[in-house]
């Protein structure tokens, strides 16, 4: 029996040793070393007290056991000390109660927070659903003193048997407990002041991963708890634990209690002292970047393990995932909700890997651990062979527009493949913007912004629903998503103006990806102006017409307005969960509608004098340097809308077409464009021209979705039609393209009859539709000084544009400018019309309204 040590001597010794450990930690900064020293200190104290207080009690049939963190030898300065007094039976338990009380009292007096429990061996071998924590803490049990054989029976027999018997319930309980804990933190590692222990990606998640490993191993027949425990942590998890342990140790000393919040001030201290950095003092932002790197690894690891055990054990989940496995194809198989390569060698082929991410973006299925391992193994080869050109863009554009693009990009990024495909993204890898507003790292903010747009269509929030419609109207959503991917890359560069940096990086990216000039210009424009709408909302009166006019001038075209509005929405919403208030969303929508309305009502404003238009003109002249005066003459009379909605290359093409009119009086360009066809017609203006073109397209069975009509002062008309080839005539019969263009030419030159062409079409073209749209006609006499604006909202139907334009021609109206748009079943057409070269009189307006109302009603089939 050891000689009794007075309590005050124990307390002094404990205090002095604790101070020494703290000094060592402050000098060296190693959390794991500190935890180990502290465990040894408390071990010695507990054992000394055990010898003192249990001297007169039976040594046989009773053991002192360390549990939880103490059992793992990871005792933080202010953590609870979990002690188990293990007894052979209840009688023994009764016998030791006074000694347990004395021992704990002395430890409390030393300043240790002891959590004691007295259990018989049989108690420990039983599973208590309501006390899952006890069974989990037993996984880390360690003998401190007392009856070795009693402990051996617990450790070597009862506990492994319990785990093997109750592994399903244990894993289920552990999974639920972890989910509840993660929910408390919003299921994200991204917090301005994270909790190092309980937060997602914190130390508790490391323990969860270890416990899962131990439970799975023991339930599969392994009997040795020690070896199972030693094998449960590896690689990046060990690094993360070292980081988290050192940091948590510092927080305990700093706060003087078991407080694990990395507060704003604590971040500055941890960074200044270089705690866990391995490289001395760093900036607080850099320290947080390290934290997120480790937290991300821990969170991914624990989530993967939890997902795996849930899948293996839930029959309902298995049924669902079995149904999902039907999406497997010749390249990828889906098993238990995870995607695998069918051929292992494919993981080494960049093209197959890109198709894998498209598959994930399409189906929302995560990578299997095996596929992840294969990709990690093939990383070097993939890094070397990753395409950088148009081939990559073809894959990237598809992935970006698919509903689960954000998760596919996250997976790609976590495997370091996104930065191989888009090196510009490297600048913002886990970059922390350390303020109280930006909750996420810049890379995660980017993924979230992409996610926001993909979820818009299904968002039930009333203030976001109008934007959902807007995204489905985009002609090239992939350009918006690419702009979102790159919009903040400049934040990782030196310099105060991140927009400038982002534009430079974006320009490099679009050049490498070989986007067309027009598409590249749109992406660069979006990145360069991604703060423009936010700035207008914050600093300008959005009900002031001058604000709208100025914004419209900067943006230039309705399609770009839509994209920039959506980019702004996503950018704000992805800053933090509360950033996009309904108030802000409403204001953004109002600014959008007012600016969109301005575009429709300013379409005939002449453009050569406006600043932005002048820039376009100069760019056109750069393309045609020897024809400066001819270009200016061609552009005279064309409105700003024309200049701002066409690229300099397109304007130059129209100029060339107009220049050839002397040789060939009808100039045509026909090309496929985004699943539709685009027909550009340049010719000399004559009455009914627009009506005739609309009629020809209708007669050929084409469905016009968009159209614009502009004319210059010399009477040259440039009309553009975007149409769907409903019967795939041009697509399936390439020679028909030539016949179609010949037909257009002959009818415009009056060598063939439109009426005859129309006859066959008019007989049978009425298909029933499910959703009817009420017709609205509205005039605006104020917005234009030369024309009367007529806005028509009506049910889209075959030949609609021909019906409207024929009616206007019959009513002696000339179409000066036409803006034709189709959104699902709704046709939205705006015409700037004149009669005899002047605005319409009140009488003429009534006549036109009456005629159109009658025609549009007549044009409806009986079931409408």
């Amino acid at each position: 029996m050891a000689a009794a040590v007075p309590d005050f001597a124990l307390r002094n010794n404990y205090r002095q040793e604790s101070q020494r450990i703290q000094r060592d930690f402050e000098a060296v900064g190693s959390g794991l070393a500190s935890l180990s020293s502290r465990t040894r200190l408390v071990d010695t104290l507990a054992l000394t007290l055990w010898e003192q207080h249990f001297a007169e009690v039976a040594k046989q049939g009773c053991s002192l056991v360390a549990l939880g963190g103490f059992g793992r030898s990871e005792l933080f300065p202010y953590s609870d000390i979990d002690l188990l007094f293990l007894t052979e039976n209840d009688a023994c338990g009764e016998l030791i109660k006074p000694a347990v009380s004395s021992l704990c009292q002395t430890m409390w007096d030393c300043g240790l927070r002891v959590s004691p429990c007295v259990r018989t061996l049989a108690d420990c071998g039983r599973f208590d659903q309501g006390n899952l924590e006890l069974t989990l803490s037993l996984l880390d049990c360690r003998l401190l003193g007392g009856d070795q054989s009693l402990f051996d029976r617990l450790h070597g027999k009862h506990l492994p048997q319990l785990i093997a018997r109750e592994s399903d319930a244990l894993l289920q309980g552990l999974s639920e407990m972890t989910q509840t804990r993660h929910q408390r933190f919003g299921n994200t590692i991204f917090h301005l002041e994270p909790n190092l222990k309980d937060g997602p990606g914190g130390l508790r998640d490391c323990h969860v991963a270890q416990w899962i490993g131990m439970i799975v191993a023991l339930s599969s027949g392994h009997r040795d708890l020690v070896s199972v425990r030693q094998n449960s942590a590896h690689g990046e998890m060990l690094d993360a634990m070292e980081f988290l342990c050192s940091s948590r140790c510092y927080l305990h000393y700093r706060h003087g209690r078991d407080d694990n919040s990395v507060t704003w001030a604590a971040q500055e201290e941890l960074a200044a002292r270089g705690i866990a950095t391995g490289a001395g003092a760093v900036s607080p932002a850099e320290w947080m970047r390290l934290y997120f790197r480790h937290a991300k690894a821990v969170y991914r690891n624990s989530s993967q393990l939890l997902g795996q055990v849930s899948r293996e054990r839930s029959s309902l989940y298995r049924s669902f995932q079995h149904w999902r496995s039907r999406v497997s194809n010749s390249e990828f198989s889906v098993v238990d909700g995870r995607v695998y390569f069918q051929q292992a060698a494919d993981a080494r082929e960049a093209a197959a890997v890109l198709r894998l991410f498209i598959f994930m973006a399409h189906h929302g299925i995560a990578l299997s651990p095996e596929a992840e391992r294969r990709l990690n193994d093939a990383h070097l080869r993939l890094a070397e062979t990753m395409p950088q050109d148009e081939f990559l863009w073809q894959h990237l554009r598809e992935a970006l527009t698919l509903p689960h693009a954000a998760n596919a990009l996250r997976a790609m990024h976590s495997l370091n493949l996104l930065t191989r495909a888009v090196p510009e993204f490297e600048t913002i890898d886990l970059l922390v913007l350390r303020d109280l507003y930006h909750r996420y790292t810049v890379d995660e903010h980017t993924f979230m912004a992409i996610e926001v747009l993909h979820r818009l269509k299904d968002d039930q929030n009333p203030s976001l629903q109008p934007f959902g419609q807007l995204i489905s109207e985009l002609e090239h959503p992939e350009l918006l998503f690419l702009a979102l991917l790159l919009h903040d890359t400049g934040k990782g560069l030196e310099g105060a103006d991140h927009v400038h940096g982002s534009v430079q990086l974006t320009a490099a990216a679009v050049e490498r990806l070989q986007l067309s000039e027009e598409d590249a210009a749109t992406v660069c424009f979006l990145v360069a102006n991604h703060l423009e709408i936010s700035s207008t909302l914050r600093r300008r009166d959005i009900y002031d017409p001058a604000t709208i006019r100025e914004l419209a001038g900067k943006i230039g075209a309705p399609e770009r307005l839509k994209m920039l509005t959506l980019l702004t929405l996503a950018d704000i919403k992805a800053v933090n969960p509360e950033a996009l208030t309904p108030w802000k969303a409403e204001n953004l929508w109002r600014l959008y509608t007012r600016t969109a309305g301005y575009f429709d009502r300013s379409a005939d404003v002449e453009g050569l004098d406006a600043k932005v238009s002048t820039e376009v003109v100069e760019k056109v002249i750069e393309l045609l340097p020897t024809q400066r005066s001819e270009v200016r003459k061609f552009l005279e009379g064309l409105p700003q809308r024309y200049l701002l909605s066409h690229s300099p290359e397109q304007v130059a093409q129209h100029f060339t077409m107009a220049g050839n009119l002397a040789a060939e009086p009808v100039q045509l360009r026909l090309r496929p464009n985004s699943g539709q066809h685009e027909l550009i017609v340049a010719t000399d203006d004559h009455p009914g021209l627009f009506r005739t073109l609309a009629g020809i397209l209708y007669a050929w069975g084409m469905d016009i979705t968009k159209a614009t009509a502009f004319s210059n002062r010399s009477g040259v008309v440039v009309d553009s039609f975007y149409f769907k080839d409903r019967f795939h005539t041009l697509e399936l019969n390439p020679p028909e393209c030539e016949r179609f263009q010949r037909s257009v030419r002959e009818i415009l030159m009056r060598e063939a009859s439109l009426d005859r062409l129309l006859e066959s079409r008019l007989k049978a073209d009425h298909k029933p539709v499910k959703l009817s749209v009420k017709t609205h006609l509205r005039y605006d006499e104020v917005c234009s000084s030369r024309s009367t604006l007529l806005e028509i909202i009506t049910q889209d139907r075959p030949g609609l544009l021909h019906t409207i334009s024929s009616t206007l021609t019959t009513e002696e109206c000339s179409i000066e400018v036409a803006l034709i748009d189709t959104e699902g079943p709704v046709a939205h057409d705006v015409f700037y019309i004149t009669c005899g070269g002047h605005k319409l009189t009140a009488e003429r307006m009534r006549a036109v309204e009456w005629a159109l109302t009658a025609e549009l009603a007549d044009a409806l089939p009986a079931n409408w």
Partner: protein
Amino acid sequence: MTKLETVIQPAKFDAVKDALIEIGVEGMTVTEVRGHGRQKGHTEFYRGREYTVDLLPKVKIEMVLPDHIVDRAVQAITSAARTGKIGDGKIFLARVDEAIRIRNDDRGENAL
């Protein structure tokens, strides 16, 4: 002590905040609100659909100030927020009997 409740155009918030900081006002509570006074609402059209905009976006700033600074604060707000058009906003003033800082029980102007 006086409580100032100010309703202004959102576009003028930065200017008003800067003007208040300039004269030494450090604390304020800001809320995004909707409303109208004489400005009333109006009707807008978007793609043929009619939208009645009867409540306009505004920003409300609330602060309690020592009496000696109130006149300067009012002047700073009016100078920064005024455009001369309907809808510039309003300032409401009300007496405050007591202020208490929860952290340390400071009272009166010490708590501001």
